[in-house]
């Protein structure tokens, strides 16, 4: 099944199969029953709960003069809807690691960089893959490899006038730990398998992501060497899964989590000492009064990058509005908003303009908080004097070991992961 993936381009694409009939009803504004949102003729945006936030959409509506109807979804629902129902949104606030599915199926339309007002200000992290000239690109689906397309939406080798989607929020993930439980600082992915933490370790249960964390740990231990952790071979997957099965049978893992909230609760409730974790989740644990440190392993972190994509079905006025909405996202206010949740945004210079100095220093520069900082909803989040683990923005993104990816051997991976969980 998996090995046939490369054949796809020669065959009829799924989009052709599912037919163009849907186009007829596309963008026609289907009125909600009852019409909950009254804003005149809104455009529709879908995304995770981290970006479809009422305050963001209502601010956007105020700034750009037309309504945005956001639909917040879970990760699985976002993937399914973005891929299968591009007549249900104008803008999808999705992720570059989904693009192995989205770009070939042409659910998006290529975005003309000439229509992106602040395109010059978008950082080089995605344009060239290197935030600073000395950075490493990292293994896996680095966003730079998914960004550039031609006028018809086919991937190109280098820069072009068109892009698959506009780079948006992003971050680098690693391990989170409770220093009281671990008794020492965690400085390497190898600690994931340390017998000291037996029964108090959790991994993320998204096979594509969890497998990378697991591989980072195995590599750090010197037990295996992976050619590309974002695109493993079957033999590499076998090696890794067999190792994981042994560990699981020893009772090494406490749990496998699937959502942000779950990972926070695992740490707050003392179920685990050490786990794969997202940086904002670590901040959330701290906000709940439980010690939690975000490790910056010497092997580097695992990065991910959000994207703002426009549906292939958007046209006319809706298309203009979609561009307008994306331009608004890059303008800085939204970037500042997500910064205070712990995410970075692709136009740091604009973000800086909208972020108070104390917040900017803490979130981007890695300096101690000059005062108590709130989350964007006004709840206290960071105590005075606290320092963001993992250092400054630059330090983090100079050292991305691997990007979230969908492997060519994805089917095989999921099969072995199923076996691992069931063992």
């Amino acid at each position: 099944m998996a090995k046939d993936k490369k054949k796809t381009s020669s065959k009829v694409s799924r989009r052709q199969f599912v037919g163009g009939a849907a186009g007829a009803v596309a963008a026609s504004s289907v009125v909600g029953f009852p019409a909950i949102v009254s804003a005149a003729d809104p455009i529709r945006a879908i995304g995770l709960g981290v970006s479809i936030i009422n305050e963001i959409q209502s601010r956007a509506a105020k700034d750009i003069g037309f309504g945005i109807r956001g639909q917040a979804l879970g990760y699985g629902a976002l993937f399914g809807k973005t891929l299968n129902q591009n007549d249900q949104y104008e803008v999808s606030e999705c992720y570059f690691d989904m693009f192995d599915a989205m770009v070939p199926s042409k659910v998006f339309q290529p975005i003309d960089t000439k229509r992106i007002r602040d395109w010059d200000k978008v950082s080089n992290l995605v344009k060239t893959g290197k935030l600073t000239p000395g950075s490493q690109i990292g293994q896996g689906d680095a966003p730079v490899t998914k960004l550039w397309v031609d006028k018809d939406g086919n991937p190109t080798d280098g820069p072009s006038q068109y892009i698959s989607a506009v780079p948006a929020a992003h971050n680098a993930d690693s391990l989170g730990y409770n220093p009281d439980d671990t008794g020492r600082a965690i400085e390497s992915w190898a600690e994931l398998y340390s017998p000291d933490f037996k029964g108090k370790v959790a991994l993320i249960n998204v096979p594509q992501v969890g497998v990378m964390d697991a591989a980072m740990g195995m590599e750090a231990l010197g037990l295996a060497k992976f050619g590309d952790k974002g695109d493993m071979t079957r033999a590499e997957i076998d090696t890794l899964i067999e190792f994981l099965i042994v560990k699981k049978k020893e009772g090494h893992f406490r749990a496998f989590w699937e959502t942000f909230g779950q990972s926070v609760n695992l740490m707050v409730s003392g179920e685990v000492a050490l786990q794969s974790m997202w940086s904002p989740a670590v901040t959330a644990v701290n906000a709940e009064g439980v010690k939690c440190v975000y490790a910056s392993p010497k092997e580097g972190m695992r990065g991910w990058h959000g994207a703002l994509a426009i549906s292939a079905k958007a046209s006319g006025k809706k298309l203009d509005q979609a561009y307008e909405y994306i331009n608004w996202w890059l303008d800085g206010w939204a970037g500042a908003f997500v910064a205070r949740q712990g995410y970075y945004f692709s136009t740091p210079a604009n973000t800086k303009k909208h972020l108070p100095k104390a917040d900017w220093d803490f979130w981007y520069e890695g300096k101690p908080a000059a005062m108590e900082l709130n989350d964007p909803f006004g709840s206290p989040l960071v105590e005075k004097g606290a320092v963001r683990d993992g250092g400054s923005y630059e330090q983090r993104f100079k050292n991305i070991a691997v990007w979230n990816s969908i492997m060519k051997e994805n089917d095989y991976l999921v099969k072995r992961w199923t076996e691992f969980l069931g063992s």
Partner: protein
Amino acid sequence: MTEAGQTHHPGLIGEQPVPDESAVREKIIRPVEGFATGWLIAPAAIWLFLILIVPLAAIIVFSFFESTAHGMVFDLTVHSYAEFFLTEGFFDSESNSFLKISVFIKTLGSTIYFTLLTMLFCLIVGYPIAYFLAMQVQEFKWQLALFLLCMVPFWTSYLIRAVAWLPMLGRRGLINQALLGMGIVDKPVSFLFYSEFGYMLALVQIYVVLGIGPIFFSLAKIDKAILEAAIDMGATPFQIFREIIGPMSLPGVAIGMIFIFVMIMGEFATAVVVYGGKTSTTGTVILNYYGIANYPFAAVNALMLMVAMIIGIVIILRVVDIRKEL
């Protein structure tokens, strides 16, 4: 025995004389008059055809498609079926035998095993509750109230309850706090949660009420006068159960077990939340492949799950013909 008359309660459909044997037979042989069957079934039949049969047919068709990284393409193939049933390498050196069972069949097997085990526990836990409601509570109004009280947790959003499991069973959860407080343990126990034990416990807790309802329903049908008569004739409680109560509650048990069976076979959320994702069920496999847009393979897993369910239900219906005995 003035009590016997009072305890014969009306049940859900009001008090009526018990139909005698001949009337029942007559009902079956000679169709009663009434609304035309066609009109009664047409709306639901059309609905089911459009919303169930057509999509189901689509799923079957999808299962023969070829999967690509970005969805599926039309390409009549049994690839996904082969993937489900066969494992590469016909010789398994580990167990020194031919034809290793594929991981998906194993997963389906363990799903069935867990389901059967949970059904058994639900029956053991739930039957006495249904018996209590039907036999010990006298007034129908209170039977219903106490039954609905069992339903309340079922009415609170599953996703919200899922979040509440951790503070209940976790290391710092209520149970551990109680155990510590009573001095039963001196440090928190961890086997309650993210364990097979916790998983079972949660499944029973969530679904037991689906079994209680139907069992209660058929127990309530039993005429208490018969029981009184049996007691007067000196029958032991065990004999009464074996001869009267047991057989008469069988249809309820069958329906309850069908409800629980289909619910747990398709279950995925509890495995993730309470077992910490430390197991694979066919439900989670379907979801995982759905998540990576391998729809043909998700469809094959779903169809195999359905086949297992149909076999299960047919077996249950073979044991008890609920259409006749309900």
